[in-house]
């Protein structure tokens, strides 16, 4: 059997096949540079095998020398590819060593093709034939070794050092995977590199009469490398399976939580979305979706907000969070909340948007209902309070109207005299006009109180607020024999607030105080409203009554809705009042006065305080 032909041809064919496989992998995934390196290692080894076989079957020294010359070409690629593979796949090896090795090998190739015979021999005088593995082959008989042969030896030594160094570096990483790679790939290359180098040196220096034996050991080191790479491929396959599994789990969890997932790839412009996401946007399970179709489902009013959120997220690299309405063809408008992040490449270009979406229609609806209820209650509270205020308002109106009537009667009498006093008449008319204006103001205030509306914040002086309450309640307090004292200095800072709502709160507190005094049957019947500055950041208004205070067990509950101690009370006054004050960024609380009455304190941030 001529094993040499079979073995070397088989090795070349196997290396070729392996090379083609990895070259194909690289062609399909241009990022897989390790595969390309391995493909070059394999393909070049195939070339080495063929030229080696050529040497063994050559008939003359010239023919042998020619095959040996051509052998250097695949050998160059082989070694360069091994160096690159070690750098890429093991992630180790010194860069300067790599370039030195490549440099020397390049010089060897150039010298090889410019010399008369080949790099190793200046001349070969004879060839010998010997039996090797059941076949008669040609080996070098006698020849003159090139002066530059030491360069090849140096290159081989450097390569061995390079691989050894890389393997040690990897070994020191102490992970199981790194150590196995160091041992398998580094050790494999090193062992067979030494074998090949030694056998080659023996032949060249004529120490042993034997064929060049580069292919077999390199084939084994190639197998070691390919084995590692195959493991990687297998691991990739397993990871893919795990990824699919974890994706399924994620989707299961997301569905259970009512979450939809979606990813938009800015490079391929493709949307990937879970069924839940598609459902939320009203897409069919197999419908093609793109940016335009998704954007088309977002409510026109909300679209700028969504875009704004994404743009700001791209700018700041921060996560985005946005709520918007979608209009689907199947059902009514729903509210979606989305949060997620954007992936931006180093050049600041958007590459991907991924996000989670959730249907928040119900929450939104509940929220709106609560808001509506609050508005209703505020309104109801105001209406109830207006009932209490009716007498005060009637009195307020009766003053100017009474004055107008009496003035008109006086004018009538003056006019019936033979020579009416025009000066007096003019004074009367001026008074009538002034009182009419007063009556108009009362009506205006009543209308403002009745109007159901959202809060409108504007700069407001606390003095005005206290004055308003005082004007409205003065008569009522007098009728109930309560002394109402209001003191608010005009030096107080301005607050930002809604005049009508805050007046309502103050009036409510004062009316409560009067009720408390009525229940107490105390001889002191007094309510003091005082405003003061608190550290320039807020203004405190205290309403102090001379009642009997609030029982300790009731104190924590009085601000609860529908909690009341009054026979005809709705229990909304304090609750609504607190809502209003808190909407202004302030606080409202109650405490008992040391003198026995109750104190209601409310704080409002000042304009400066709320701005900072």
């Amino acid at each position: 059997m001529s094993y040499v032909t079979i073995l070397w041809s088989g090795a070349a064919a196997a290396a070729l096949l392996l090379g083609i496989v990895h070259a194909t992998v690289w062609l399909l995934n241009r990022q897989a540079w390790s595969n390309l390196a391995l493909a070059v290692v394999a393909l070049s080894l195939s070339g080495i095998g063929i030229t080696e076989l050529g040497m063994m079957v050559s008939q003359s020294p010239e023919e042998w020398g020619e095959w040996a010359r051509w052998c250097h070409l695949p050998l160059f690629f082989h070694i360069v590819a091994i160096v690159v593979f070690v750098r890429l796949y093991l992630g180790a090896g010194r860069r300067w060593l790599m370039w030195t090795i490549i440099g020397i090998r390049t010089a060897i190739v150039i010298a090889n093709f410019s010399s008369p015979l080949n790099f190793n021999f200046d001349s070969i005088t004879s060839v010998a034939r010997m039996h090797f593995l059941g076949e008669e082959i040609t080996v070098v008989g006698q020849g003159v070794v090139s002066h530059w042969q030491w360069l090849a030896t140096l290159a081989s030594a450097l390569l061995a050092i390079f691989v050894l160094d890389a393997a040690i570096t990897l070994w020191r990483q102490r992970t199981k995977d790194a150590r196995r790679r160091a041992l398998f790939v580094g050790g494999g290359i090193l062992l067979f590199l030494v074998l090949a180098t030694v056998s080659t040196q023996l032949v060249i220096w004529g120490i042993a009469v034997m064929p060049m034996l580069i292919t077999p050991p390199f084939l084994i080191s190639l197998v070691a490398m390919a084995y590692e790479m195959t493991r990687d491929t297998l691991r990739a396959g397993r990871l893919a399976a795990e990824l699919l599994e974890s994706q399924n789990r994620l989707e299961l969890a997301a569905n259970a939580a009512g979450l939809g997932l979606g990813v938009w790839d800015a490079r391929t412009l493709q949307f990937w979305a879970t069924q839940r996401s598609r459902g939320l946007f009203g897409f069919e399970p197999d419908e093609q979706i793109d940016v335009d179709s998704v954007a088309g489902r977002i409510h026109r009013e909300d679209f700028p907000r969504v875009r704004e959120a994404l743009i700001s997220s791209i700018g700041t690299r921060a996560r985005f969070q946005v709520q918007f309405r979608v209009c689907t063809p199947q059902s009514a408008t729903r509210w979606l909340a989305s949060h997620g992040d954007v992936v931006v490449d180093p050049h600041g270009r958007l590459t991907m948007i991924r996000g989670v979406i959730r249907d928040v229609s119900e929450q939104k609806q509940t929220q709106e209902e609560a808001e509506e209820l609050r508005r209703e209650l505020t309104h109801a509270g105001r209406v109830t309070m207006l009932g209490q205020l009716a007498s005060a308002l009637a009195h307020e109106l009766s003053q100017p109207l009474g004055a107008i009537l009496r003035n008109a009667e006086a004018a009538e009498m003056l006019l019936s005299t033979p020579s009416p006093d025009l000066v007096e008449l003019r004074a009367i008319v001026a008074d009538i006009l002034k009182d009419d204006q007063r009556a108009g103001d009362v009506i205006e205030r009543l209308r403002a109180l009745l109007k159901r509306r959202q809060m409108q914040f504007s700069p407001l002086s606390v003095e005005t607020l206290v004055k308003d309450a005082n004007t409205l309640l003065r008569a009522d307090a007098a009728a109930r024999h309560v002394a109402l004292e209001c003191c608010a200095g005009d030096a107080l800072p301005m607050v930002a607030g809604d005049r009508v709502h805050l007046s309502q709160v103050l009036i409510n507190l004062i009316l409560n105080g009067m009720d408390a005094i009525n229940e107490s049957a105390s001889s002191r019947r007094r309510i003091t409203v005082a405003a003061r500055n608190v550290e320039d950041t807020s203004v405190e208004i205290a309403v102090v009554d001379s009642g009997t205070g609030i029982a300790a067990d009731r104190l924590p509950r009085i601000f609860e809705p529908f909690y009341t101690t009054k026979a005809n009370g709705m229990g909304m006054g304090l609750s609504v009042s607190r809502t209003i004050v808190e909407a202004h960024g302030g606080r409202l609380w109650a405490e008992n006065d040391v003198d026995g009455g109750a104190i209601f304190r409310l704080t409002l941030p000042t304009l400066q305080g709320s701005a900072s």
Partner: protein
Amino acid sequence: MNESPRVHLVDDDESFLNALSRLLRLEGLETRAFISATALLGSLGPASRGCVVADLEMPGMTGFELQERLAAAPAPMPILFLTGYGDIPASVRAMRHGAIDFLEKRAPKEELMRSIRVALERGDQEFERRGRLRDLDQRFGRLTPRELEVLQHVVVGRMNKEIAAALSINERTVKLHRTAITRKVGVHSSAQLATLSKEIGLFGNEPTLTA
């Protein structure tokens, strides 16, 4: 010595106060305007006469408090309440405490003037009665303790003899006392003496208000 009858107006609303003063002046009445009940009370003296027209709902001292303080003043005057709008319990209370009337601020002029005139008239009567009582007080005040003892028996219609026996004195002495009483008080008949002494509440009877 005596002031002329005046309408004392009290209202915390200056505008209304001016208008009402103006009207009443044109109606020929003399008015004095006060911005608060305290101001009015501070200006009243024993010789003040007339009536008070007050706003029921005023800060500080309310109408009712004014009414109470006025009754205890040296020169009590009838009071007429004006209010923003009629409140039944308040009006009942006002009337029970002897207010002349309880009117809305925008009550018809005729009604207002009628009430004011009634109040003034009653004020005058009151003033005169007060003068008369003061006079009687003075007269009865001159009596000695013994004469008062005798008078106590006279007003219940006892004869001189009975009085002498009751007081263990001479009948002639009783006669002398009775002469002194007639001279000091200026009334002779025992029936008249009885009426007068009852009027000033001399023997435990409260002075009756002429209604």
